[in-house]
């Protein structure tokens, strides 16, 4: 009969209306600034620089190789290489960025910088509340704003960070083994040098 469907519809909406007050499960809205959803592992928006330890300068993994700067499609990264060198995580002296700027108003969150970085130095952040009253300077992040600790990285991307840490530890172990082997070899050579100088240096026979 005419009107039946409307009555059914009215009953349905009334059920939803009352249900939303009775049953909290129905209200799926997350009231954002007070409540938030737990961050997703795969979430990403803008890159940041990882440093090890507690000192953002000493622990910064970036060696200012400028690959990311060259690869960045919207060219939002600006790097200036340092004049001097500082030891990296294995202790090898490396350059470091004197200036490392990312303009996040230009960044398109493509993650290419992360893909190309050979030093696991740049990673994607999940921080998204970055609005600012100054749309130029406020959105241009410098080295100090970008540098975030490895602990932070482990917190936002636990699985990925564990993989990276394992990889870096393996590298470091290999480097240490190599260094030790080198040192051993050097020591051996040195020892050989010190123990067998006469043999190594044959005295010229007086043959006249």
């Amino acid at each position, binding site marked *: 009969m*005419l009107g039946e469907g409307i009555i059914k519809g*009215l009953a349905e909406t*009334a059920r939803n*209306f009352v*249900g939303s007050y009775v049953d909290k499960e129905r209200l799926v809205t997350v009231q954002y600034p007070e409540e938030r959803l737990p961050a997703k592992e795969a979430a990403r928006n803008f890159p940041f620089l990882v440093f090890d330890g507690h000192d953002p300068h000493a622990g910064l993994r970036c060696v200012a190789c400028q690959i990311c700067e060259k690869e960045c499609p919207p060219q939002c990264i600006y790097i200036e290489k340092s004049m001097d060198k500082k030891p990296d995580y294995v202790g090898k002296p490396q350059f470091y960025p004197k200036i490392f700027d990312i303009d996040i108003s230009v960044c398109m969150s493509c993650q290419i910088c992360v893909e190309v970085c050979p030093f696991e130095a740049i990673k994607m952040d999940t921080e998204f509340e970055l609005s600012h009253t100054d749309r130029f300077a406020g959105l241009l992040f410098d080295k100090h704003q970008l540098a975030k600790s490895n602990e932070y990285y482990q917190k936002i991307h636990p699985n990925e960070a564990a993989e990276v840490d394992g990889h870096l530890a393996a590298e470091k172990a290999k480097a240490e083994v190599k260094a030790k082997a080198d040192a051993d070899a050097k020591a051996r050579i040195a020892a050989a040098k010190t123990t067998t100088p006469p043999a190594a240096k044959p005295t010229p026979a007086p043959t006249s």
Partner: protein
Amino acid sequence: MIDAFDQIFVLLKHWALGWPFWPESLKPMLSVFLSIVPIMLVFALLFGITTVVERKAIGRIQNRYGPNRVGLPFTDVRLFGFGQFIADGIKALTKEDIVPRAADRVVHFLAPIALIVPVFLAYSVLPYGKNMAPIDMDTGVLFFFAVGAATELSVFMAGWSSRNKYSLLGAMRAIAQMISYEVPLIISTITVVMMVGSLSTVKIVEAQAEYSGQLPHWHVFTPWGLAGFILFLIAAMAESNRSPFDLPEGESEIVAGYFIEYSGFKFALFFLAEYLGMFAISGLAITLFLGGWTAPLAFLSWLPSWLWFFAKLLALISLFIWVRGTVPRLRMDQLMNFAWKFMLPMALINIAAAGLWFFLPAGFDRWAVCSAMLIVPYVLLGRGLMGGKLFTKRTYRYAE
């Protein structure tokens, strides 16, 4: 004491008029002023609150929260979002008023005013309580429909002067819809006028202000009254451009209809007029069918009469919101078919039923005959309107 509370607004007005420093010549003006200003304030406030309540209720229907943020400024007091309409009002007031270059500036400017004035005029004949009709006109109902019909002019002014095809389409839809639904609206009202024998809104309410036992003599409790009330309500929804009859502003096809080129406060005026029109026509529905300011049960008559009027008004507004949250928008041909092929015949049959009711002796037979007279055509017309089609779950031939 109860009487004094019931008549508090009337007494207050007389008290204010009795101040000695008013010159005698100004008193009629002042009396009018004292009637108009409270109506404007109360209904403008009701409009604001209704916008928030509507958004909240529709949100709840869709299992959302709706607006719950805006409260008192500079504090954390949120008032469940009921500060929203004040913020909206301030925003509308401070927004830029844009007039299209090709628009007819004068008509474009006059359209919202030509809408809001008749809408407010319609309030002048509604009895808000005992002795609380601003004007007790002998032709109150006629006056109401006369000014109600004047709003169509403003709709077309807005649509025509904007020089926008969507605007014009919206206006033409609005006119077609309003004229089509005005016919069943007025014909369903005629039954009440026939029964009461007067066009005065005050007399119509007084005719319903009797009780047999506890039950009131409201018109809605008769077969012709119930049918008339439902027809009136549907036509009122269409008249006030409420969903499911909101084709004139159908967002999905013509953006915003006839007020697409309006911004800022002019747009707010259109919005206000739309809601005020809805309140006014609900007020008339209450007056005609729901006993105006009379209490629903005899022992509740001690509550002030204006309280009952506003309680009924809020109930009808809630019904309008509920329907809006339920029914999708009609198509233009469905709208017209419904008006001319269902509403109009039903309204005409209703007149005959009301006439029969008047002449038959009171009793069960009268109920049975009049109800049958309305239910049989309802079922038959409904079947005809659906065209013998059976609406089932839609099946797709290819996409399975």
